[in-house]
């Protein structure tokens, strides 16, 4: 892009990105110190903090949050790396790769509900073995889900996060010249897992550091997933805060704000600790990498990761496959493995709403994602130019961390402050406000997905084009953008599915006046009705899956189709 004044564009976008974040933060920080005029509080005080720290439930919630919020990402990372090391560039792994997109596309709440049905004592796993093997005529009184240690929550987190990490890693493989590395190492006699452990993973980690941080922050703050499948005596801190924020006793809000602030500090500390742990670990394993051993016993770790990873994927697909069955079920009691009576009623009941919900959902998702794609291109171009100027390969740009702030902050609390801003601007309740808020959450994912391919683009193509005839803007689109099609389409699909899944931002910015498939699905999930949730989740997942699928098939066929059309019209 022949941009001029890149530093001004950078500054402008940075301000646009930071402003809502700062206002959201202020909206949380002031009540955390008891300042909140609408409730008649004009005096600063530390009372909310004293109240938080006096709550026994706060400590037990925090402990649970730390266990699930660190355990989930750690295990996800392990399993994702294992699967990648095992299957990279193997033909059957390609098939698994294409299956990842449905999991990425399906909203968390739907996965959690599916998983709950799969694993609970009256769930599908127990059903297929009952009563002929287990002898159970009625479900056993086991705690297989919502267990007090948060194991089922960790499992649900892995199911959602491992595919995302795998997706990010696959995208990053090109930039570390994985194939050349593998060939070279294999020629030297290294076994597959060992060369990954010693050569590729250390190169890969710095590229995927931010996605990992996103996953950690998500695990520490997730509400919908933890509500469904997490323990409730106590719940995780995010759920506890959510309850405090929603308490009819409005003075609970102060304590909740203080807790939300504490949660933000916790995220920063955990991320800092994670980074320190990673550095310590690399320093510790550094000499081991060059000891010349072609195999090692730690390879077993990656091998075991493959087994667990496959089991996890299998569970995810089972959970996803069971939901649509519910949408067609009338009676489906324990211990039947399939419904005893079927019906179209559940789907028919959902149809009248569909047109409005679908058009709202698509309008918001398309607008937010298109804007995010355009903004990402601007940002990446300014980053590329400043990189080219300073001639450093790994220059840290302001965008690289600014953009992630919204998704690293807990949505609860932060969004309330933002809502007040929207009301001041008189933007509340409009579709534009929803799109703007979605943009905050879509942009980081689009930017992140596009960043690698965009910066790796061989600029010589564009330079060559401009040497041939100098039309920089036109060439930017018909050469660079056209060549980056696959990356752009993937980034679009990613952003699209993120937008579709947004619940709190849609509700808060739209003030509930604009329903989407997700707000409707979660409103119905509140009733715990698996049939309703099944039909809604099916629809909710449908569009992202289609978009992901199109993103895979269009770029490879685009030129062929375009040429065919051209020929057709020329002949005609």
């Amino acid at each position, binding site marked *: 892009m022949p941009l001029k004044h890149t530093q001004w564009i950078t500054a402008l976008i940075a301000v646009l990105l930071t402003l809502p974040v700062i206002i959201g933060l202020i909206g949380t920080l002031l009540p955390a110190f008891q300042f909140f005029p609408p409730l008649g509080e004009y005096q600063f005080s530390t009372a909310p903090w004293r109240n938080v720290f006096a709550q026994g439930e706060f400590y037990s919630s925090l402990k649970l949050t730390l266990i699930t919020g660190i355990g989930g990402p750690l295990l996800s990372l392990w399993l994702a790396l294992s699967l990648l090391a095992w299957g990279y560039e193997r033909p059957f792994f390609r098939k698994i790769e294409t299956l990842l997109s449905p999991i990425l596309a399906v909203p968390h709440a739907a996965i959690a509900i599916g998983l709950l049905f799969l694993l609970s004592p009256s769930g599908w796993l127990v059903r297929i073995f009952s009563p002929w093997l287990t002898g159970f005529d009625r479900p056993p009184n086991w705690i297989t889900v919502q267990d007090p240690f948060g194991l089922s929550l960790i499992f649900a987190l892995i199911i959602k996060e491992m595919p995302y990490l795998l997706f990010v890693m696959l995208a990053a493989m090109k930039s570390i010249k994985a194939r050349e590395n593998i060939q070279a190492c294999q020629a030297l006699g290294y076994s597959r897992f060992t060369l990954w452990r010693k050569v590729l993973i250390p190169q890969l980690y710095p590229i995927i550091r931010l996605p990992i941080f996103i996953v950690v922050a998500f695990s520490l703050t997730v509400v919908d997933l933890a509500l469904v499948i997490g323990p409730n005596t106590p719940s995780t801190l995010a759920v506890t805060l959510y309850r405090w924020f929603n308490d009819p006793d409005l003075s609970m809000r102060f304590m909740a704000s203080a807790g939300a602030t504490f949660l933000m500090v916790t995220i920063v500390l955990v991320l800092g600790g994670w980074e320190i742990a990673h550095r310590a670990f690399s320093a510790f394993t550094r000499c081991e990498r060059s000891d010349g051993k072609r195999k090692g016993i730690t390879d077993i770790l990656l091998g075991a990761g493959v087994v667990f990873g496959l089991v996890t994927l299998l569970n995810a697909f089972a959970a996803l496959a069971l939901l649509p069955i519910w949408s067609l079920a009338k009676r489906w009691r324990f211990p039947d493995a399939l419904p005893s009576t079927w019906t179209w009623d559940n789907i028919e009941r959902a149809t009248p709403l569909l047109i409005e919900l679908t058009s709202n959902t698509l309008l918001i998702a398309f607008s937010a994602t298109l804007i995010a794609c355009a903004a990402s291109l601007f940002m990446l171009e300014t980053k590329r130019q400043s990189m080219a*100027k300073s001639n450093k390969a790994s220059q840290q740009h302001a965008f690289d961390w600014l953009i992630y702030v919204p998704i690293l902050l807990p949505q609860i609390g932060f969004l309330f402050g933002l809502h007040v801003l929207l009301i001041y601007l008189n933007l509340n309740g409009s579709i534009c406000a929803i799109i703007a808020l979605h943009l905050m959450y879509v942009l980081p994912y689009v930017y992140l997905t596009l960043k690698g391919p965009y910066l790796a683009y061989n600029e010589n*193509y564009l*330079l060559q084009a*401009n*040497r*041939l005839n100098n039309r*920089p803007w036109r060439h930017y689109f018909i050469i660079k953008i056209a060549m980056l099609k696959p990356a752009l389409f993937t980034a679009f699909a990613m952003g699209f599915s993120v937008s579709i899944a947004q619940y709190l931002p849609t509700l808060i910015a739209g003030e509930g006046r604009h329903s989407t498939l997700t707000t409707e699905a979660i409103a119905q999930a509140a009733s715990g009705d698996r049939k309703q949730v099944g039909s809604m989740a099916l629809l909710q997942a449908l569009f992202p899956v289609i978009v992901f699928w199109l993103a895979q098939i269009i770029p490879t066929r685009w*030129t062929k189709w375009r040429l065919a059309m051209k020929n057709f019209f020329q002949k005609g």
Partner: protein
Amino acid sequence: MLSVKGFTLSSTDKTLIRDLSFDIADGQVLSIMGPSGIGKSSLLHFLSGTLSHSLTATGEAFLNDDALHTKPTEARKVGLLQQMPLLFPHMSIIENLLFAIPADVTKETRRELIRNALEKLGMSDKANAMPKELSGGQQARVALLRTLLAKPDYLLLDEPFSKLDPALRRDVRAFVLAEIRQANIPALLVTHDSEDAKAMAGKCLEIDAAK
């Protein structure tokens, strides 16, 4: 005629090339040889106006007494052929070639130019093929023709033959030389293969590390 006067190239810590001067007449090829890392390619970047910011170059370049070094890249009318043919992978051969022809040429003439070019290449049947369906030698030839179709005023060749099979190289070299003669423009070839230089039938300049 392309003239370079007193070209000096230095990186942050040392001088790479000192006080290099030469002239290239129209239709002639000057070959420059030297070990890698010496700054041969940087000379080409200096002439095309895309020199990296980490290097500093002084000196002057003229095309028919017109100063080049003060102009931005897009105003220089330079043709550059690199190691990689850089055919745009998402465009057919004909589109790649069409892409190069200046916009002010009429539609009829464009077609004519392309037809001639493809015939010259003996690839009339490949018009709608995609770059990846072509062999390396074919790609290199298409890339050269594409560069020439843009009617450059001078041509820079950055080891354009090094990625080709030895058997192909001879053909491609001959083709390139013939095209340059026909276009009647000065060309500068950077290479570390003395065969390249010989084949171009012009002067050869060897650079050593600056002392």
